[in-house]
């Protein structure tokens, strides 16, 4: 849902992919402790960081995210025994790839926040928001997003009509 954009200052959009057992609970704790942090972050809950496909990160950037945060249980504390180890390995490789294609890695943060670390969550979200605010909007993916609009998806009634008449 689009809201009025504040033109005078850039408000970055941060998307956080978190696991339900540690970081989501840590963010809940920040709430129950009434800590305060910037309202720029949107949280997507996953069962485990192991479920997070790197494609989701690309998708987030493509949809206009200016920063992405991935966070789960500390190594060794995974609710699913080893999901976060797979995630760690996967994202170690993925970071290299992103760097290679020219994404500033300052926009991407990986971290471990446990269910007891409400304060760490606040600190991390605040830091990332401020860092990305300083870096400015993420433009690299906008062209890509435009291209996809023309990739054959039927988006207008005219197209639909033409398609149906074949």
């Amino acid at each position, binding site marked *: 849902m689009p*809201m009025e954009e504040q033109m005078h200052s850039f408000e970055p959009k941060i998307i956080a992919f978190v696991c339900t057992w540690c970081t989501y609970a840590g963010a809940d704790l920040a709430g129950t402790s009434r800590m305060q942090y910037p309202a720029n972050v949107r949280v997507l809950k996953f069962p485990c960081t192991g479920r997070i496909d790197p494609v989701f990160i690309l998708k987030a950037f493509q949809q206009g995210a200016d920063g992405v945060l991935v966070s789960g249980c500390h190594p060794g504390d995974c609710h699913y025994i080893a999901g976060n180890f797979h995630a760690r390995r996967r994202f170690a490789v993925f970071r290299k790839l992103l760097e290679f294609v020219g994404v500033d890695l300052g926009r991407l943060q990986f971290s471990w926040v446990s269910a007891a670390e409400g304060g760490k969550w606040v600190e991390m979200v605040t830091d990332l928001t401020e860092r990305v605010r300083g870096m400015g909007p993420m433009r690299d993916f906008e062209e890509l997003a435009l291209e996809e609009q023309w990739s054959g998806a039927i988006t207008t009634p005219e197209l639909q009509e033409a398609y149906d008449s074949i």
Partner: protein
Amino acid sequence: MSRIGVFICHCGENISRTVDVERVAALVGTLPGVAFSTDYKYMCSDPGQGLLKKAIQEQRLSHVVVAACSPRMHEKTFRKAVESAGLNPFLCEMANIREHCSWVHEDRDEATAKAVEIVGMMVERVKKNRVLPTITVPVTKRSLVIGGGIAGIQAALDIADAGHEVVLVEREPSIGGHMAQLSETFPTLDCSQCIMTPKMVDVANHPKITLYTYAEIEQVEGYIGNFQVTVRKKARSVDEDKCTGCGVCMTKCPQKKIPNTFDRNLGMRPAIYVPFPQAVPNTPVIDRENCTKFKTGKCGVCQKVCGPGAVDYEQEDQLIVEPVGAIVVATGFDLYSIEEKPKGSPIKGYGEFGHGKIPDVIDGMTFERLASASGPTGGKILRPSDGREPKQIVFIQCVGSRAREKGISYCSKICCMYTAKHTMLYHHKVHDGQAYVFFMDARTPGKSYDEFWRRSIEEEEAVYIRGMVSRLYQKGDKIVVMGSDIAVGVQVEIEADMVVLATAVQPQKGADTLAQKLGISYDKYHFYSEAHAKLRPVECATAGIYLAGACQGPKDIPDTVSQASAAAAKVMTLFAKDKLEREPIVARVREAGCVGCFYCQKVCPYGAVEEKEIRDRQGNLVKVVAYVNPGVCGGCGTCQATCPSKSVELDGYTDEQIVAMIEAL
């Protein structure tokens, strides 16, 4: 087209104070697919749920989004409500606009805008939700209890008395835990051994309890109702079936100079030993590190004198697999030590108290052993250094506890009361002695607790000094205690014969390793975390695992016993049904797409992925694909993120759902 109903909760004022809920309801109502949107004061209340059910039926809603608190709080509540209105519970999602929005932001416009986005994201997600059938799994009606202190014993006895089998695993050679070490217990001053040992015997004699002492948890697999636990039974070097407990081996053992850890190293024990005379089981164990036979190969006295031939030097560790349906964790506590901590440890020692090098500065548990009739001094309070009776004794409270600079900020809860008890025990045994207590605050909530504390001052003549001690040092055979009395505002110096420190309660060593094996969470001190601090205080967030006693946080005996019985009641509730409904968040393989690479099998932490052969009508093998056993799958989704052909999907967290959420932003 979906007909989605969106319900925005005010949560009293918790949400509506910072989020304009009416505006959110109005804006969200314009989203494609949303047929109905409203706001209400308390969605989780009975009328709130009634409103939800009525709307589902009257508006013929196909999906529901409740924007309220965290799904960790009320997802179950609303899914149940949705189910009772005739919808599949998995067609209901929660948007967290309290913990993640109203409580963490102050600006009303910002918070409202964020709430609209959060709800919009969940609306897009719920459109892609599918009907999921509940999965039922069988329940193994046996329980594992880890830890044989008072918590574990109480839980094991309660569960076993209800008629269910219990496997009790204890790390030490005997059950009993810390309570067996205590002399007397507050607030009634009854002897700890007298109330503890009958319970220990009950455990040993109970037909439904299998007891493994000198054993540890090696591995835990499975999930609620169906755990497979591997227990490592360490080599005792004594055959428990043959041993009669006569004790001849212990009297004849030539190596008798080993510090007795049960007596806090005050007494000595032989290399083949039982920790204390009332041990259960009363079967000795050979301490292989200190036994001459194991060190040099010579000796073998115990084997020669053993009538039944129970001593077995060749015995090896045994791995035993036990299927259980529920696990009670009752691993208890350990005491903080003032000794110098290794570099890098977040908890610091007390250099100002001599780092534990002054022999007559002891901790509370050592004092318990001195005061205990079965202790190394036969119940006489004597100085460890020279065996004299201390005439001036100083107790210092909050050593480690409530000391952020030492790395621990919590209150250890039991020290105020046990120090009051210590002053009484001391006064009963040393009539001409004087006890001083340095304290910050006296925290004595509990039935008959404050009366007990007052008694130590009014009747037992303990002198309480409000203030902390800055330094302890040896001067001749005295210990100089330098402190302050903040009530009067003067410096105090006492020449004491003995100093007793009420050191902080900490979790057992290795608590974190065990938590990792069990897959349960713990806080920064390694106390185990309960699922909800107020409403689910004995359950872990991991289903089927329950907590009892001081492993969750400092607790006294009455609280520990209550929690152990509560954990047992939770286990019995689980065992009351033959089948258990589990969340259908499991992975499924799309066989048409699967190429049989089995990367999923390699990453699956549960071993849930099996091979399945696809054959044509003639019975010729077409291909081998992956199959996820829904009973074993834990639902982490690592397989889905790994699958190169995107042929495995985690129900409830499909790519479709997640991409829909990202696109909504």
